[in-house]
């Protein structure tokens, strides 16, 4: 019996982009099913079980956010959104509707594969390691301890909560409102200055150079992402 291949649903109306993505994905050993419109994508998703969906936000028949919302009514398959710069609000809407991550066009195949791996891993519900490590940063989730280069760092409860959330979703983007909802509660969703100040403080404590952060990466206009 051959090993079951990971299958990806690829939704984009641009033929050239589908061709490039199909080649890259197949090159990495993924099975690819293509759809051109939102309607086609929704039908394909009911007929097949996909491991992940790559979805362009600018589809001819319906908004990618709408496709995400309808898929999320019954499916938890990871969705990665493709969009262009200056459409930050669309990206946020799609992420809030349940998309897992996004890529800004133009992007490289390497970036896509990295996002895909992260999303597949999170969807796989692998047992979370109690200790997370990236570069010199080490976070012990069981004991709420943080080290940078072997030196233990003292964080405020809010800073720790932020870092904890980043670690839980390591490699995935987290939107501003997701942070505010989860760390401060729904009533604080508009208080983005709280997030800015605490991220700034957190960076000062864990980043080697807070002016050019390497662990907590900014997704302009959308949110933050912890380097996986």
């Amino acid at each position, binding site marked *: 019996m051959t090993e079951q291949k990971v299958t990806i649903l690829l939704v984009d109306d641009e033929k050239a982009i589908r061709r490039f993505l199909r080649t890259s994905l197949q090159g990495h050993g993924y099975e690819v099913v293509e759809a051109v419109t939102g309607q086609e994508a929704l039908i394909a998703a009911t007929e097949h079980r996909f491991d992940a969906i790559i979805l362009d936000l600018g589809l001819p028949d319906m908004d990618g956010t709408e496709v995400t919302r309808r898929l999320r009514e019954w499916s938890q398959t990871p969705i990665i959104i493709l969009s262009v710069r*200056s459409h930050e609000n669309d990206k946020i809407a799609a992420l809030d509707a349940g998309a897992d991550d996004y890529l800004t066009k133009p992007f490289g195949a390497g970036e896509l594969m990295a996002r895909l791996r992260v999303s597949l891993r999170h969807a796989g519900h692998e047992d979370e390691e109690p200790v997370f490590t990236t570069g010199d940063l080490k976070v012990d989730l069981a004991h709420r301890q943080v080290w940078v280069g072997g030196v233990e760092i003292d964080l405020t409860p809010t800073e720790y909560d932020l870092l904890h959330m980043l670690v839980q979703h390591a490699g995935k983007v987290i939107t501003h409102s997701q942070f505010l909802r989860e760390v401060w509660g729904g009533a604080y969703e508009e208080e983005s200055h709280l997030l800015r100040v605490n991220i700034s403080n957190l960076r000062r404590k864990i980043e080697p150079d807070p002016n050019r952060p390497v662990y907590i990466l900014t997704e302009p206009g959308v949110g933050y992402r912890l380097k996986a």
Partner: protein
Amino acid sequence: MKFLRYLLSLGLVALAVLAGWPFRSLIHPVNLVMLFLAVVVASAVFCGRGPAILASFISVFAFDYFFVDPRFSFSVADAEYLITFLGLLVVGLVVSGFASQVREQVLKLQAREAQTEALSALSRDLAVAGDMQTMLQAVVDHTSRSLASQAVVLTSEDNHLVVRLSSPGFTLSESEMETARLVFSSKEAHASAQQKTRFLPLTNPHSVVGVLGVKPVGKRSGFDTSQEKLFESFANLTGLAIERTLLAEQTNRLHMLSETEKLQTTLLNSISHDLRTPLVSIRGVLDSLLEVEQGSEDSPRLDPAARLDMLQNAREETIHLNRLVENLLDMTRLESGALKMHTEPSDIQDIIGSALAAMEESLRPRSVQVEIEPDLPLVEVDFVLVEQVIINLLDNALKYSSAGTPVEVFACRDECGIAVEVFDRGKGIPTDQLESVFSKFYRLKHSELTQGIGLGLSICKGIVEAHGGRIWAENRLGGGTKISFILPLRREKDGS
């Protein structure tokens, strides 16, 4: 008025009677006739022909009644007086004729002088009027003042006669509009019995350009000959002035059109050049690699290092291409007003870090020094747009300084807000061009660099100014450019 003048001539006769009465027994009555003659002449000069004739007749009767025996009766004792009566009457009539002619000529001269004055005042104002609106305003003002009327100017637009300007509160009824249209199409004056408003065509040597209408104010129902003439002269002057203004406007438009065309051509040239350059590299790299893959006989041999170099080159060019497209899009959005700002409290350190990350590949070969004052307050800005400003400034710093020189970014608190400065060690900007570098499609004169189409800095300016900030360029001591911008801190809400 007329009645008053007759009354005045009667008064003058009465005066002659009163003046002669004390001398009635001292002087021979025939000599007293001179008094009445003087009165007739005075009537002719001051009151006109009619009153003078009246004065002549009344004088004869008054002379007879008061001074000729028997007094206080019209009967005459001495028949010789009949000759005196006839003489007085004839002389009175003749003199009054001459005198009133002189009077009319004086009046005519005065009227002509007033007309000439009115005409020259109008042409003076028409000559200094720079545009159509000022010119028409002068026409309406002068016409209404000189003709004691309300005035209206109509011109043809797309073959429709429309009211361009009128005296305050003066509107044309539908039937008056109809007359105006008739005047316009026939190029001749038309009088309508029911209407007080009169129209004349505004003509120039080539065509009819409009219609001038006047409506006498008050009870007058029409104009006298001299007013009629003045009206015609006004219409002629206006027709020529409109023609002249139209020609001037047309010349202006043509000039602007050719300027715009020139700009568009320059823009298209530089955009297509800048779009094509990266494509040339990318296409070249891909073709070479394709040839290698296809393994034909004369295909080049490329060692792995050369291939890697080619691929990296192609990749960098796609980044340039993307940046150019983004800038063109931003420019279009700024220009069309479609740029929507999503401001939120933002950390300038975060924005700078994000811009540096976006430029990471281009910045890697350079030394980049970043200094940010600790504990800067948050600024209420659009994160993505301000990041774009810093990216453009970094991109410029790289483009206009040679490899190996450092690039620096500073941010600090300023009395007006938060200041960000980007420094390079390039050639700097000639002092006279420090401001113009922020205009659209501006490239440094005499620059050997042809890269870039002069969009980056103008976009920066647009974005910074949309945030209520300002941006400027300076030359550094020891060479190089410093570009600074200040973003105002969020203005405190009223009452807090």
